[in-house]
């Protein structure tokens, strides 16, 4: 009987962990000693960082989508169906076509916007958290001739914590280039007492926003949105009027992990922050946006985590003790204008020390958008620095 590795979810984390393992286990896979299966209902893999850049015309649909099958190593089995129930005690994942057993399970089930948490949110405005919504927003930004453009965070945590900051900077840059900046007031609205979770980065962001005349509204926790009056109302009793609202929705975990009783608070999977094992299980791992560990919900975190999990599963399959721990490493770009960016590199113990914004970081970000398909997603850069 082959040893079975089952990966639930074919996003960034799931695809990288499968490919990383497939490269290491090529001979065993060919010999039928090991099987790696990726399960996902979608045949398409979407590069989600494109969602922020599509509204400004910096990326396009064709650059954001590939077939999942084309990204996976030939030795990895891809089943285009969703998990309907995950039974960790009995090592079984149920799908519409039957039950799948496993020796090692990787839950890479991601995060999803949950508009229902804030009344009025879904009808109120625009967002860049799906491909279709990114294109709707692109049209809206192009039509917007002036007024108050409000970008607001309606719940923490959410995918890509720097994205709302980047959106405000990009909007400033976009309308400046069009000669419309004086007609467009840009507001950034955030629930915390500073414009980002990490203190020193928040100070830099505040300085940059002040310099760019972006209004920063803090401690504004959105309670409801009134699409008719075009108003955001906060739990703190304040109201912000908008002409165009770009709202980051609250997020939650995948329905299958909630229905299977695996999820904890917020729909996130209780996960050991170092081993990345699902708490209480030594044969089930969780990576990427799906976990409850205190790191950014970002593709780079999923990438670094995938390298740790692939290494430790390889160790176990070969009779060794797991040899890696995840140190909380995350790498995020912050695009600060159309043409400049900075970079955050941090882990559990070391806060980021971002360099001043510069063209080289921006250039690298755009190059990385293309490298993702040929190198990162294919598992060819396994955990540099992990």
């Amino acid at each position, binding site marked *: 009987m082959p040893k079975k590795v089952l990966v639930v979810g074919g996003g960034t984390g799931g695809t990288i962990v499968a490919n990383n393992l497939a490269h290491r286990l090529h001979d065993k896979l060919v010999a039928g000693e090991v099987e790696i299966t990726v399960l996902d209902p979608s045949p398409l893999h979407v590069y989600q960082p494109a969602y922020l850049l599509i509204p400004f015309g910096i990326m396009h649909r064709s650059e954001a989508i590939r077939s999942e099958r084309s990204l996976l190593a030939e030795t990895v089995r891809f089943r285009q169906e969703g998990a309907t129930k995950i039974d960790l005690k009995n090592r079984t994942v149920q799908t519409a076509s039957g039950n799948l057993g496993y020796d090692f399970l990787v839950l890479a089930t991601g995060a999803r916007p949950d508009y229902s948490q804030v009344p009025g949110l879904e009808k109120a405005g625009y967002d860049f958290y799906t491909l279709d919504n990114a294109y709707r927003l692109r049209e809206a930004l192009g039509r917007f001739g002036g007024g108050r453009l409000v970008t607001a965070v309606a719940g*923490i945590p959410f995918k890509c914590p720097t994205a709302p900051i980047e959106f405000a900077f990009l909007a400033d840059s976009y309308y400046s280039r069009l000669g419309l900046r004086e007609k467009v007031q840009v507001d950034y609205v955030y*629930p*915390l*007492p500073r414009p980002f*979770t990490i*203190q020193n980065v928040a100070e830099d962001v505040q300085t940059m926003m002040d310099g760019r005349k972006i209004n920063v509204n803090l*401690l504004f*926790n959105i*309670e409801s949105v009134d699409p008719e009056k075009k108003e955001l109302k906060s*739990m*703190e*009793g304040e109201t912000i009027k908008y002409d165009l609202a770009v709202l980051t929705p609250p997020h939650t975990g995948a329905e299958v992990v909630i229905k299977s009783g695996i999820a904890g608070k917020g729909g996130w999977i209780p996960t050991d922050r170092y081993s990345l094992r699902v708490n209480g299980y030594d044969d089930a791992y969780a990576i990427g946006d799906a976990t409850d560990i*205190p790191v950014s919900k970002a593709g780079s975190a999923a990438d670094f985590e995938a390298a740790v999990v692939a290494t430790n599963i390889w160790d176990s399959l070969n009779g060794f003790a797991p040899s890696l721990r995840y140190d909380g490493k995350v790498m995020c770009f912050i695009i600060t204008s159309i043409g400049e960016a900075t970079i955050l590199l941090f882990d559990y113990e070391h806060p980021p020390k971002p360099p001043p914004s510069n063209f080289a970081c921006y250039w690298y970000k755009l190059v990385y958008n293309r490298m993702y398909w040929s190198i990162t997603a294919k598992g060819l850069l396994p955990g540099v620095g992990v």
Partner: protein
Amino acid sequence: MSENQQEKVKVIDARGSFCPGPLMELIRAVKESAVGDVIEIWSSDTGSQRDIPKWTEKAGHEFLGVIHEEGYDRIKVRKKR
């Protein structure tokens, strides 16, 4: 969330959660509570001592103080409106 019968305080144990986790959990609890309720949040994140009073002041609730325990703080807030 549990209820301490003697002090009639709703306790939220957010120890092990990092910024902004404890503040977000407090905000959620205040949203679900009645005016006059006291909420006590347990936090091991030192940033909570700075962030929670700022939020309670802005939101019009009453900051009742901090009790330092071994490795964490008990921060009390009363919902006022």
